[in-house]
């Protein structure tokens, strides 16, 4: 999977990296069990500080997208939202997003169509999720 980070963006690099990995998992470009480059390698190949990558990996681990093994490095290990924490977070973010869509004049049907389109692009095999 190819990760692209925009240095001119206002979004911090570690957040961009975290988002890119999550999108990759969602689209199925990063399969469960697949390894990620080590922190040092990722930092070398992106040309960013190792601390930045370390921070992104830390967040991905705490959010349950990857597991970090001392021998094999980071591996994709997406976990289901067992306790409904994500549901709450999604509801909050959707509230803001839908409110903004309403203000900007986006119809519900258009919004739903957009959601369908984005969902269709996700290829992660749900059965493999732990």
């Amino acid at each position, binding site marked *: 999977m*190819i*990760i*692209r*980070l925009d*240095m001119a963006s206002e979004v911090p690099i570690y957040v961009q990296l975290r988002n890119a990995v999550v999108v990759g998992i969602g689209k199925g470009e990063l399969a469960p069990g697949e390894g990620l*480059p080590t922190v040092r390698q990722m930092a*070398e*190949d992106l*040309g960013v500080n190792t601390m930045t990558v370390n921070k992104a990996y830390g967040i991905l681990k705490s959010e349950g997208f990857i597991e970090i093994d001392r021998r094999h490095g980071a591996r994709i290990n997406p976990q289901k939202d067992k306790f409904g924490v994500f549901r709450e977070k999604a509801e909050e973010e959707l509230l803001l997003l839908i409110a903004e869509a309403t203000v900007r004049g986006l119809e519900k049907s258009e919004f739903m169509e957009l959601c369908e389109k984005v969902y269709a692009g996700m290829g992660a095999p749900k059965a493999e999720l732990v």
Partner: protein
Amino acid sequence: MDFLLAFSYASTLWFVQLCLLFDLYFITRKKSEYLIFMTIRGEQREDVDVVQVVKGLKKEVWVMMAVMFVATGVFFLLPLLRKGELSLSIIYMTLWCTALIWCDFKIIKKYANRMYDLKLNKGWQTPVKKTVLEVDTVVSRMKKTMPVSEIWLAVPVWICIGSFVWWFYCAAEYKVLLISLLFNVLAFLFFCYMYHRMAHGKLKVYSEDSDLNYALNRVSKRAWTGCVIWEASLLCGFQFITTLLLHLYMTSVAAGKENVTGLMTGLIVCSALSIILFLIVFFVAAGKVKQAKKELAAAADFSYAEDEDVYWKNGYYYNPGDTNTFVENRSLGISTNMATKWGPATKWILIGTFILCIGLGIAMLPIDFGTMKMQVGVDSLELQGCLYYKETLPFDEVTEVYLLPERPESSRVWGTGTDRFAMGDFYFKGYGNGKAMMDRDAEYFILAKRQNGKWFGFSVTDSETMLSVYDRLKAQTEKEQ
């Protein structure tokens, strides 16, 4: 100055010209996808304006080369100037090389800029997302498998260790050979650094296909790390052989052996061979990378999405977004990314080399235009030669002394020997080893034997002083007897 020597100096400069002409060939050749560092493909190459720019570059470079060629001949080969001494030759060669490289660089920069503007005007430029960083996670994970193993660096390491062991046990009396061995170590350390930078350097994302990205990156990393290891081994090996031959030469001369032509030839052949092999390895690596990349891109029916010409528009690579120190050159071989810390370092290394060479030439001026000075004290005499050459002879150390009306026949073991001066360690034919501090224009030469059996040959142009010193030394030896 001998005609052959002058011709060899001139040939060195012409060789530099030849190298720059090779560079001109590589940046304008038809087979490459780059023209004057800019990506020009297919029908674009036939465009009238493009052809004009290339013609303009070639014309300017050839005119400059012709002028410099004539300048070399005038300085070194015209009989009137052939008397030019070593110091002047060094200063002239340094100025000549600097002027040549500077002019060549300026001309190429001008035409690379012109070609870049032409591409922009014609709308051939593809945009470059200067702010976007990319990484292929699959390729990045397999990075360790790409370079040639660093274990092969053990070969030059053992050569370096072996050379020091040899010096310690076999040639410790010739401390000057240590310089050559230390140069070996420095060169090896530089190659280690290059290997490290190339093996761990940033990977490139060429396409969306990870397999193709892996193949293209692997070809490049493998070829260049292999090249560095070969170069390090060759350089260390040949430097060691040269040191061995030099040691053999010095011991042979010190032992009074007259025919050392074979050894001198061996030294020259060895040095020439090391340069030739060095270049061959470099060209083979560069050729392999270019060929493999071309074949891979063709097989995958892939064309490079971004041309990255903006980073090459000055004739060198400048990309602040790329952390790689060494990148593939668009003409041939590898180039430094001038946006990294090595950019200013490269500039200062070039300036430093220029200052060093000019400084060396100036420091050597006394060798060609200075005089030998002698100070006679109450119980010793001191000779002050050029540069750092200085020798003291206490009168009571002398056991034998000869006054010679002609310069004693001598061979240099280690020191300075010019048309005018002989300074350093010399072998005096018919006498033995010792030190020399001789002005060859002098009328008289004195050879004095010290208590340790070594000879000391000296002379200054002031004949009266020479005769009085001889009388003093003769009286001393007779008193001893």
